Structure formats: structure tokens, C-alpha cells
């Protein structure tokens, strides 16, 4: 479904840092893939490249046969709108929008008003992530776990093909973090492909595939481990 071939990425500030040194990853449809590694190992950079938020220096990312390095900006925007979704450690909710408005954010990019159908779908998603009755609240009135659920609902509202999660439990306590991972696992079991970056090894037991990174390279890959949690 999504393949990254020989990805190289470096950042230059005062000096050049080679973050990814020829990484190859193959994400299968319906998989729950976990990318683990220590800070600075390049896992978040890899996730950003896979989710089109970042372009590699070399190598290519192919999504359903489409080389993402060769498509137009408009096409990338369409993929971000309809096929890929990203959730972050810091939720990145809009503090002045209600839960419902935050969830509907992907629909608010048009001048035409959000349809009743989209609104109803957003309400279903809110219910699905366990926030029924809280749709009119502002994010500031929610707990950390609830805020992450809002960001998951926002990521799901356009029914993406792949959900990318960058340290989704990083700002949460252990119990809330576990709840969020279980929610992601439920979504995965309903057919959603998930790629998650984490340094919390306890969550790898929920994954079908675990990829371990070190110093910008893959140092280990384990398949079919889900269910052992």
C-alpha cells in the first residue's frame, strides 16, 4: 500500500545532520505498524516523509503505485485531505473552536458550508471516540485524553486510508495512553491502516509490525506480533 525505498534525509543548520540513511519500509494495507527507537533515531522524520509532510533528499515514497515525489502540490494536498491523516503528541486543537468544529476542520477548507451529512458523520465519529455530549465544549474544558480523542476524531472524519500517529500518548498518563492505543487498535481492527511512532515499547504489543530504528537506519523488524498484549 505504501512503500518507502532507500530514503535519505539530512537537515542543515550550522552543520549537516544525516537523519535517515537509506531507509526502506513497506506498509501493508490493514497493518498496525509501530516505529520505535530512541530520541534522534529518525523515526518521526520517517513518519513525516511517509505522510507527505516532508520530502526526502533522495529515495522515493510510493502510495498505491503513485510516486509521491513526482506528483503536484495539489495532488499532495488531495492525498492529505482524503487518504492520509496525522495525529500528533500535542493534539494541535484550535482552542477557539468547539469539539465539533475541530472535528469538522478538514471540511472547513471550502467556501460552501459543511453539509448536514458531513456534520452527522462527524457526530458519529465523536460518539465513536467516546465524546458524545461534549461536542459543544472547547478543548480547554477537556482532559488530555479527551483532547487526543478529538484529534483522532478529526483525523478520522474524512475516512482516511492510513492514519499516522506521532507519539500519540506522549503527553498522556499511562492509563489514558493505554486507552488511546486501545482505541487505535479498535480502529485498526475495523480496517484502518495505522503507522505509529512511539518510544514506549509497551505499546508495540498492539502492532502487527514493529520497526526499530537507530541512527537513521532500521536495526530490526518484527512481524505478526499483535495479540500478544
Amino acid at each position: 500500500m505504501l512503500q518507502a525505498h532507500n530514503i535519505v534525509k539530512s537537515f542543515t543548520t550550522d552543520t549537516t545532520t544525516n537523519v535517515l540513511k537509506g531507509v526502506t519500509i513497506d506498509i501493508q494495507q490493514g497493518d498496525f505498524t509501530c516505529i520505535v527507537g530512541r530520541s534522534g533515531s529518525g523515526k518521526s522524520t520517517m513518519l513525516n516523509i511517509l505522510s507527505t509532510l516532508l520530502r526526502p533528499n533522495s529515495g522515493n515514497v510510493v502510495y498505491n503505485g503513485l510516486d509521491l515525489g513526482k506528483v503536484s502540490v495539489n495532488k499532495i494536498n488531495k492525498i492529505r485531505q482524503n487518504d492520509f491523516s496525522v495525529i500528533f503528541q500535542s493534539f494541535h486543537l484550535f482552542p477557539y473552536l468547539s469539539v465539533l468544529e475541530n472535528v469538522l476542520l478538514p471540511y472547513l477548507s471550502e467556501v460552501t458550508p459543511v453539509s448536514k451529512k458531513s456534520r452527522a458523520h462527524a457526530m458519529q465519529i465523536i460518539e465513536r471516540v467516546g465524546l458524545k455530549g461534549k461536542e459543544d465544549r472547547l478543548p480547554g474544558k477537556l482532559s488530555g485524553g479527551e483532547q487526543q480523542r478529538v484529534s483522532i476524531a478529526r483525523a478520522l472524519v474524512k475516512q482516511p486510508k492510513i492514519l499516522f500517529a506521532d507519539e500519540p500518548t506522549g503527553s498522556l498518563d499511562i492509563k489514558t495512553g493505554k486507552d488511546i492505543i486501545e482505541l487505535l487498535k479498535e480502529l485498526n481492527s475495523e480496517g484502518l491502516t495505522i503507522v505509529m511512532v512511539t518510544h514506549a515499547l509497551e505499546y508495540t504489543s498492539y502492532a502487527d509490525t514493529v520497526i526499530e530504528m537507530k541512527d537513521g537506519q532500521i536495526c530490526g523488524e518484527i512481524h505478526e506480533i499483535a495479540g500478544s498484549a
Partner: protein
Amino acid sequence: MNILTLPLKNLKRKLLRTGILITVFTVGILSVVMLYNVSETIGHSLEKKMTEFGANILIYPKSDSLNVSYGGFSLGNLSYSVKYLSEKETNDSIRSIANKENISTVAPKLVELGTYKEQPVAVTGIIWAEEFRIKNYWALDGKMPVNPNEAIIGSRAADLLGITINSPINLGTGTVIITGILKKTGTEDDNLIFADLHSVQSLAGKQDKINFIEVAALCSGCPIDDIVAQIQSKLPNTDINALQNIVKQRMSTINYVKRLVLMVSVVILVIACFMLSMFMLASVNERKKEIGLLRAIGYSSSKIFIIFGFEAMIIGIFAGVLGYLGGYVSSVQLLSRIDIEGTGHILFDPALMATATLFVAVLSVLSAALPALKATKIQPTDVFSQI
């Protein structure tokens, strides 16, 4: 809910900042509208006052022979084969041109020869009210004529001919009595006798006839050449002279006031736009994470531009409406306090308000263009990138 929800909610969230920004922009627009209204009224008033120092258009019958001068104007031939204009027809024609609002004074004249103790004297028939409007500088010894058979005389003519107050001047079938002597004007008026036009016409047996007409036209907003052309089309059998030097002098004074106001207005608008631009730039820097997230969920750079452009446009619309209303009220109040003639000319014009608001809205969007463009360059990984 649509793309405009984001800028609207953001403005509402930062109510104090939005209020300050709208206030600053409103004060700028208010100042410009007030300056414009005041300068227009003062310009109009100034021009009206300047018409008191002479006419700027002279109309006389077509002539192709000897020219006679009067008050700096060429009068055509008065001595040989004299031609006349119809007072009523000429007056009506001038008052009915397209730019009739610009006609301030129409002063017709008939020059007839009379005698004083067997000496020939020129008696000029005038309409007192119209003449005083263009010769506000006249001052005299004695009293102004009250009755139709009374007249005044220029100081030089009085000295040379030995005419004093109560002297009778023979004219046609009757006489006119001198009631006042004009103080020295330094013009041809010093050599002439002035009497009521209709009395002169009656005594000379030339009812409705005049030799020429002096016209004072207000030239702001309409070039003198246009007014001359319009009169010429109504009066094809006349020669019309525009005193371009007088017009240019007046217009340069008025234009100076207008240019000054324009410059001040431009400075005010530039400062207001700069402040809006700075506010928007601060807003972009403050909302980098929001912009990054929007890009991550597929908002194109044009959509990001729309969000910030619309925010600026809303500020512009509020400032445009409030600034226009405030400027209108302030200028009326200011002009009524300094007692300038023509305050009534400032009319509330909804169409002008709509145009001004549209202009301010466009100006606001242009002011926000650079910060908005900066926002479009922000990428998700710029704001939440981790290795």
C-alpha cells in the same frame, strides 16, 4: 460553517486586539473622510469668495471689426454696426447648461452714451445684485442707488467731468441722478457711470438688449473649457472669452488645499495599513502551529491566504463603515463650529459609503497580503518537527 468560520472565530476570540485594530483603522479612515469633506467645503467656499473679485467668462455678440476693451475683456465692436444680445434669452441659456450648478453669477451689461453739460459720458446698465457679487471690493462715497433712475460714477470720471452727488446725467429720453462716487478701484470702473440695467434699456429704447454678459463660474470639478463649450453650444452667435489666467490662479489656490489634504490622507492611510500589516504579521507568527496543522490536513496555500485575507477584509469593512460615518458626522460638526459657508453641501451618500468601504476592504487585504503570503509558506514540519 465554512472556511470563513476560522477567521471569524479568531477575530471574536481576540476581541480586544480586534477592537484596537478596528479602532486604529477607523480613526485613519475617519480622518481621511473628514479631511476630504472639509477640504471640499473649504475649497467650494474659497472659490465662491474668489468670484467676488471678478468674473472669469465674458460673452458678447460675434464681431469681426474694431475691438473695445472693458475691464480687461475684449468687447468687440461697440462703435460701428453695434450688435446686441437678448438679455432674457442669453441669461436663460447660460442658466440651463449641463454644468449650471457651476454658474455663480451672470452679470449682463448695456453701455449707452449719455451727456453731462454737453459732454459725452458712457453709462453702463447693470443688475446691481449680480454686479456686487463679482465686485465685492466696491466702496463709495454717498449712497447706493435705491430708485431705478439713480446711478453711481467712477472716481476718475467724476474728477474729469466735475460730476458730484446729485448731478443729473442725460440719457436717451430721461435722466439719471448720481447718488454715489466709487472709491478708486484701479480698473476701468473708475471711468464709467453705472445705472440700473432695465432703466438704461428703457431710457435708450433698447428693451431686453445688452452688449455683453460677465459670468463667474466655479471651476472646481469642471474645467472652464467645458463650461465655455456648453455655453457656446447654447449661444452659437456669440463670442465667448474665458479668462484662463484668472481661472488658473483660483484653481491653483484650491488645488493647493486639495493636494495638501491628499498628501496628509495618503500618509494617514499608509500608517494605518502599516499597522494592520504589523498586526497581521504578529497574528501569523502566533498561529504558526494552527497554519502547520491546516497544511497537514490538506489546506492549500491559497486557502491559507483566504483565511488571513478574509480576516483583514472584515477589519476593513468595519473600519470603512465606521470611518465613513464618523468622518461624515465629524466634518459636519467641525464645519458648523467654524461657521464655513457650504456645510450643507456635505450630504450623506450611501453609495459613496459603500464605495469607500469597498476601497478600505481592498486596502486591508492588500495590507495583509505580505503576512498572508508568509503564512502560505509555513509547512507542517516547520512547526512540529521532531527527529
